[in-house]
């Protein structure tokens, strides 16, 4: 798993690539928590290169969504591959999160 952050026009983009699972989720959690604690209220999580996610990964995103809601901020996810998308659908997380097909579409929603 690799995670990195960039920022443009007040929107923080977090890119997570590889596997977000029981072994890697705590690393991802600390990066995302940092971004939220810095009082960023517009966060785009780009999952274009995420090849695998399990419930441990979903848990990290849910925690982030809760923290963000408490700060009246917004998290948008984008560019999920089909297998990852079906995990979101089965778990009901596609209702909890705002998910866009492309990064361009997501950026317009902030």
């Amino acid at each position, binding site marked *: 798993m690799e995670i990195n952050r960039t920022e443009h026009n007040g929107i923080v983009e977090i890119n997570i690539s590889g596997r977000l699972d029981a*072994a890697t989720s705590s690393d991802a959690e600390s990066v995302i928590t940092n971004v939220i604690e810095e009082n960023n209220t517009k966060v785009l999580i780009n999952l274009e290169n995420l090849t695998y996610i399990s419930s441990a990964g979903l848990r990290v995103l849910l925690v982030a969504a809760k923290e963000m809601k408490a700060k009246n901020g917004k998290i948008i996810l984008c560019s999920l591959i089909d297998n990852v998308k079906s*995990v979101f659908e*089965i778990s009901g997380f596609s209702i*909890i999160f705002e998910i866009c097909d492309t990064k361009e579409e997501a950026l317009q929603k902030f």
Partner: protein
Amino acid sequence: MQYCCIRVLNKSGFFIYIYIFNMFGSVMKEELKFSIKNNVEDLEEMNFTVKGFLEAYDVIDNTIFKVNLILEELVTNIIKYGFKGKAEVHDILIYLSLKKCEGQIYIRIEDTGDEFNPLYAPAPETELPLENIKVGGLGLHLVKNIISNIVYQRFDNRNIQQLWLKRD
């Protein structure tokens, strides 16, 4: 005795060898049996072993993703909750077969941890307002929704979980 051997490169750069033995006929038994310890660190090795085995039999990526998810969720549950208060290391047995059931992958997981019947676990309530959603039970909910059948038995102080997954 005939056998076939699959060589898989693991994450540390070492080759691991999976031997598939066939004592009775010319058709290879398309099965994999191995064990891991109840450590989260062993999950990566497990995924690697399973991926190598399934790829060797031309199982497509979609199905490999699902097998991976099933094993991670169930084995993580065993590691986290099955051996509470027991300091010693335990084995978790994993068995996969592509032949046991036509068009399906058969998965069996056995452990000597505390009794736990996955069929009784409640599904998470994701329709609640965001702040009230709890994530417990999410892994099992995912597993139950991608498999075609699950059977649980408690036998000889072991949890035996048998699952059937339709091949894509």
